[in-house]
C-alpha cells in the first residue's frame, strides 16, 4: 500500500473517531451543564444549606404559592450570551469547588456587601421584562422609571435585597 493512501485512511479514521469523541464529550458536557444547573446540585454542598433554606422560604422559592420560581443559576449566572454564561459558570464553579476542597472559610455576612458581584441583573431581566408595566404599584413606578431612564447607578439588586434569600443576615447570624 502506498504510504500516501495509508496516511489518508488514518486521517479519515482519526477524524471519524475524533468527531464521535467530540460529540460524546459535547453531549456529556451539555448534560453536565444541565445537571449542575439544578438547585439540587447547588444545595448538595453543605456550605449552601443556609442559602438553599432561605431561598425556599423567600419570594422566588418553592414555599411561595403561585409565585414564579427562580433557580440559583437564574440569578447567579449572567444571561449575556452563551460564552459569558459558560465562562462565568466555569470560573465560579471551579472557585466554589476549590473552596470546598480546601474548606475555605467564608465571611458570608461581609460577602453580602458584594451581592451585586454575584447576582446578575441580566438574570432578573430575563423574567422581569417590563419594569414600568401598566398596573405597577405607584410607589414602584417612581424608582423603576428612574432606573429605566438611566438616571441612577442602582441595580435591581441594590433595592431588592430580600427577594432571593429573605432576611439572609438573620439566618446567617442564627447559624453562628
Amino acid at each position, binding site marked *: 500500500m502506498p504510504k500516501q493512501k495509508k496516511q489518508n485512511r488514518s486521517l479519515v479514521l482519526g477524524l471519524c473517531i475524533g468527531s464521535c469523541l467530540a460529540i460524546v464529550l459535547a453531549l456529556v458536557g451539555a448534560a453536565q451543564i444541565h445537571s449542575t444547573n439544578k438547585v439540587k446540585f447547588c444545595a448538595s454542598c453543605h456550605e449552601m444549606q443556609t442559602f438553599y433554606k432561605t431561598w425556599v422560604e423567600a419570594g422566588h422559592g418553592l414555599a411561595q404559592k403561585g409565585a414564579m420560581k427562580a433557580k440559583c443559576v437564574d440569578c447567579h449566572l449572567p444571561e449575556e450570551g452563551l460564552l459569558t454564561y459558560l465562562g462565568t459558570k466555569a470560573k465560579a464553579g471551579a472557585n466554589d469547588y476549590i473552596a470546598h476542597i480546601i474548606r475555605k472559610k467564608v465571611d458570608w455576612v461581609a460577602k453580602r456587601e458584594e451581592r451585586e458581584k454575584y447576582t446578575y441583573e441580566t438574570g432578573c431581566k430575563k423574567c422581569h421584562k417590563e419594569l414600568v408595566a401598566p398596573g405597577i*404599584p*405607584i*410607589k414602584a413606578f*417612581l424608582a423603576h422609571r*428612574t432606573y429605566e431612564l438611566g438616571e441612577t447607578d*442602582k441595580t435591581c439588586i441594590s433595592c431588592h435585597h430580600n427577594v432571593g434569600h429573605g432576611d439572609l443576615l*438573620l439566618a446567617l447570624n442564627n447559624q453562628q
Partner: protein
Amino acid sequence: MHLLKRMFLLLWLIILSLMLGSTFALAQEKGYPNLLKTKELVITRGYSKDALKCIECHAKKTPGIVESWRESRMAHAGVSCYDCHAVPKSSPMASQCEGVKGTKIFTSPMVSPKTCSKCHPKEVEQFSKSGHAKLASAPVVEKAKFKKLMYDLEGGKFAGVPENSKLRLAARQSGCQMCHGTEVKLNADKKPTDDSWPAGIGTRYPDGGIGNCVVCHNRHSFKISEARKPEACAKCHIGPDHPNIEIYYESNHGQLFLTEGEEWRWDSAPDTWEPGDYKAPTCAVCHMSGIGELATTHNVNERLKWDLVHPKSVVRSGERGDGEKGRQLMRKVCSNCHSSVHSNSHFAKLDRAVDLYNFYYDGASKMLAELKAKNLLKEDKWKDAFQELNYYLWHHTGRRARHGAAMAGPDYAHWHGFFQIFQIYKDMQDIFDYRIKNNKIEELSPVMSTGPY
C-alpha cells in the same frame, strides 16, 4: 289663631337653632382639624393588613402624625408607615412597638436615606455627593478639634464638669448635632439613645445610611412646597456665623418673597416649577430646582464656584464640587431672569469681595505664622486675643462679608462684614506689633465677643 301663632314661633325657634348649629359646625370644620374625630380612622383600601394596623393604631396613639401623613403625597401614592418604618429583623435598628410585639414585624423609628432611596434613588445619590451628607456631620463625628469644642469647652470640662457627666453632651445635643447631625447610637432595645437622635442633615444611621431627608421635607406630610420655601433652609442657615436667611430676606429676591410670596405657586411638579410660578427665587430655586435648561438637583454644591465657609476661599474642587462648572451652572440659573450684563456685574462683585477677604485673611495668616515662629502665641487659643480675633475674622465676619456679597445682602457684606473685618484686622495688627516689639504676650488680653450681630 293663638295656636297658629304659637306654632309659627316654634317653627322659628327650630329654624334658628338649626342655623346656629350649622354655623357652629362650619366654624369647627374650618379650624384646626379635630384630632379626636380622626381617632376612628378606618381605611379599607389600598394597603396590606399589616400597614392598616399601623395606621389605625397610630391614628389613636399619635393622631398628629397620621393627620400629616393623611394629606401627604406619600399617602396618595399608597406609601404608608409600614413602607418606611418596617425593617428586617436582622437590621441593626430593628425593634418592636407595643402594637407588633409577638409578630414577625420589626420596625424602626429611624428612617435613613437608604430607605428613601428605594423610591427616590436619583435624589439620594445626588444628595449623598453634596455637603449636606457625610461632610455635614464630619465635624461632629470625626474632627478632634470639634470634639474638644463640644465636650471640653462648651461642655464645661475646663470649668470642672466631670469627665463622665452627661452635661458634657448638652451643648452638642442641643446645638451642633441639631444641624450637622451625628452618629446615632442604640440602646440594648435597638431604639436610639436619648442623646443621639433625632439629629440634623448629616445624621449617620446604624444601617449605614447617611443624611436626613426630613430636615427639609418635614415629616410626615413631606410637602414639596415646604422644602421650596426659604424657611426650610433657615433652620440651620441662620445666625452670626452664616446669616444666610437674613441675607436673603434683605436681598431683593427675599423682599419680593416677603412681599408677595403668599401669592406664588409652590407645588408645581418637580422640574416644572419655573419663573412665573414665582417672581423671585428662593434658596431652592438657585441651588437645587430645575429651572430653564437645568434639571433639579439635590446636590447643593453643584451650582457653586467658591467655598465661602472655610478660612480661605478657594474655588471648589474634589469632594466639594467643581467650582468652575458650578459658576457656569449658576449663570444659567440667573439667565432665566437677568441679562448677562446684570449677572456679570453680580459675579464680579462676588469675586472681588472674595479676593478682598482673602487678602485680609492672608495678611492675618502671615502675622499668625510669625507670632508662632517666635513663640508669641498662647497655647489656649480661647485665651489669646490674637487667635480669637483671627477666628472671628474668618468664621463670623469673613463669612458674613462673603455670603452677603454672594446673595446680595449689602447690610451683611458691609456692616456685619467688611466694616468689622477691618476693625478686627487693626486690633490684630496692634497686638502683633506689641508682641513683636516687647517679645512677650500682653498680660491680660481683651476678650473678643462676637460683636454686634
